[in-house]
């Protein structure tokens, strides 16, 4: 037994040393820098004093919204808070709970069946904005697990980096589009991703995505968040994500089932149909969810059509309140 343990210890020590040496941070994928965009988004959130129209969700909204156009159409200051689906629905909802205030209107657009976030992405966000630590779970066990697993992941990043360097030496590409888009500099001051707008699009992946329909724990999570937002006097709405045609066609049954569950069980209004934001694959930049400039314009116009009556209603209520009750505190109307 003693011999076994000693040998195991020696081998373990040598191997750990090798892993630590190989896990020296040579490079990281662009998305780790891309999530730094949260700083711009929160800066805009804090700059606006009155009620705001906040778009939240994953990268489908980050890539697929022209906030300025929405702002001009709705006469409400817009913030595109959507960043990355990989942060997880919990992160997105916790962030919303933290930033909203009375009078805000929130439009949530998570990707289909969005699940728990990736800790490495959540941690990368926290590196840019330490205050975001409260948006995700980081107990001792999770942090310990991440600190071990991140070493292994880093070795993979280093391999990719070295291989990319080798490829470049053999056939240098003209431009590294991915590096330009997946960076914290990809955003405009509203929080929209704009770095990809004038770049040649890759199109949606050739193999359609397969969604596995089933129970989605996102519904109870959104419902729980909606209670908090309701108490704060916030109007909260759900919209379906932008999705490429081929993947939509491949998942009509799953999406229809989800739509039925959402309309039945969600506490907040679902203000569109899934097909409202389905566009041809050629209008996608590089994934099933990331729209190109043309796709983004189409989606923005569609969103304006959906959101405009709601913001008009909000303006009308505000006018009514201002005209009728001068000294009464603001009492937001229930949104259902």
């Amino acid at each position, binding site marked *: *037994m003693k*011999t*076994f343990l000693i*040998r195991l210890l020696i*081998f373990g020590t*040598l*191997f750990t040393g*090798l*892993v630590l040496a*190989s896990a020296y941070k040579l490079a990281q994928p662009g998305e780790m820098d891309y999530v730094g965009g949260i700083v711009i988004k929160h800066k805009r959130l804090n700059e606006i004093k009155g009620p705001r129209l906040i778009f939240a969700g994953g990268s489908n909204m980050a890539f697929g919204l022209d906030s300025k156009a929405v702002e001009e159409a709705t006469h409400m200051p817009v913030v595109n808070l959507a960043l990355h689906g990989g942060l997880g629905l919990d992160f997105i909802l916790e962030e919303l709970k933290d930033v909203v205030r009375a009078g805000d209107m929130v439009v949530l657009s998570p990707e289909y069946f969005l699940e728990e976030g990736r800790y490495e992405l959540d941690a990368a966000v926290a590196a840019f904005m330490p205050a975001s630590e409260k948006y995700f779970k980081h107990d001792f066990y999770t942090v310990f*697990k991440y600190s*071990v*697993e991140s070493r*292994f992941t880093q*070795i*993979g990043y280093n*391999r990719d980096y070295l291989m990319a360097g080798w490829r470049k030496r053999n056939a240098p590409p003209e431009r590294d589009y991915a590096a330009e888009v997946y960076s914290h500099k990809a955003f405009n001051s509203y929080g929209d991703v704009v770095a990809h707008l004038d770049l040649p699009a890759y199109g949606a992946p*050739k*193999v*359609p995505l*397969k969604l596995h329909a089933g129970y989605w724990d996102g519904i109870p999570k959104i419902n729980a968040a909606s209670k908090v937002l309701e108490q704060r006097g916030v109007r909260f709405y759900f919209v379906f994500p932008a999705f490429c045609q081929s993947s939509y066609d*491949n998942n009509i049954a799953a999406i229809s089932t989800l739509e039925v569950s959402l309309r039945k069980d969600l506490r907040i209004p679902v203000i569109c149909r899934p097909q409202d934001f389905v566009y041809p694959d050629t209008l996608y930049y590089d994934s099933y969810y990331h729209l190109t400039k043309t796709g983004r314009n189409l989606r923005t116009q569609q969103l304006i059509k959906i959101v405009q009556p709601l913001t008009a209603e909000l303006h009308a209520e505000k006018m009514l309140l201002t005209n009728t009750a001068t000294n009464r505190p603001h009492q937001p109307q229930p949104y259902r």
Partner: protein
Amino acid sequence: MVFNSFEFALFLPIVFVLYWLVAKGSLLFQNLVLLAASFVFYGMWDYRFLFLLFFSILLDYTSGLQIHAAKTPRAKQWWLFASIVINLGFLFFFKYYNFFVDSFADLLRTFGLQPHVWTLKIILPVGISFYTFHGLSYVIDIYREKVTPTRNFNNYALFVSFFPLLVAGPIERATHLLPQIEQPRRFELSKAADGLRQILWGLLKKMVIADGCAFYANQIFDNPDAYSGSTLVVGAVLFAFQIYGDFSGYSDMALGIARLFGFELLRNFAYPYFSRDIAEFWRRWHISLSSWFKDYVYIPLGGSREGRFKAIRNTFIIFLLSGFWHGANWTFILWGGIHALYFLPLLLANRNRKNMEIVAQGRRLPSVLELWQMLRTFALVTFAWIFFRVENMTEAVVYINGIFSFSIMEMPVIFPKGLLLLTTLFLLAEWQGREHPYALANLEPRWPRPARWALYTVLLFCLILLKSEQQQFIYFQF
């Protein structure tokens, strides 16, 4: 908690230390440590099903003692009957209830009736098919007087719930595992080192080969009508390697983990893709299940000794049952039926026990004939896997139609060269080790320690660098 998880990487050393260092020298405490660990392991899936597991253990433990103590054959039969009915009742309820209700409703609809279907949202308890079969083999063996029931409840509970085999086998027999549980175990360095090696090989099979193949196979099987026949063939081949890497990798890990604690479990795989005919394939694939069906279904039905008609009938029964055991879906039943059809010519020609020895034993390479036989068997098995993988019969028809179309002449759209190269290297390693229980089993006497350690380091780095997105073990759903 799965074997290739971070949680298990913490769990295993804790149990190992408690077992060998804290409970050292006491059989009772060692067994209690393993029993507690097994319940923790299972409870981390879903603690509610611990009650079901406990009830199943209690039922078979009591039935075993009652069968043994019964004075009359009738009383013995009654207890055996009760145990089988209750065990299979639970299995039926959790695994097959909705299948039978839906199938019956479909049948009524074909006659123009509109039945009110009452299906339930049932969660399948992980490992139920495996531990039910453990318990059944125990009571049947007691009834047949092959085994004397144990009076020690802890030992019996450990026999059923021993964590390496609890959720996906191998399906153990009381004659094999119970004596090991009842006897004191001494730590053996070579056994423990061998166990670790087998775990490493199992991890590679699962995380590199199976998960890597799954990535592409899932894409192809998820959209069969979007691909050419040649791509569908690639998908089927990738699935063949996925399921082998997944299940045999899991079995390797189970055997390796058990060996760390001084136990030898039944071998579950013996290089099935190097089989020269279907009969040999079934002697090498999921051996513990095949032998279970042989001992508890095929032979009691008369086997092949009561005439040709009965032999054919019995063959179909066990293959169809084997298919049905895998899941409540007509696709699994058809998969079993196809294998029965493959097996039939061998049975009729009395050639089903022809290839009993290891292929090309003592030689480096197979003969041309052996190579052809292996490729033919692999093609037949891969074709049948299509039915195993698809979700329903419509998808199966689409997939098969796609394969048998002119588009089979086109270049495949999905052809992961790197992965196929890796799979080929893996197959070569398996071929090299085919005369041993697993591919790395013969390292220790032949390779000096520095070379072995260098190899382990390379393999561990392969795990880190080549692992794919983690997929659930396929056999957990059964």
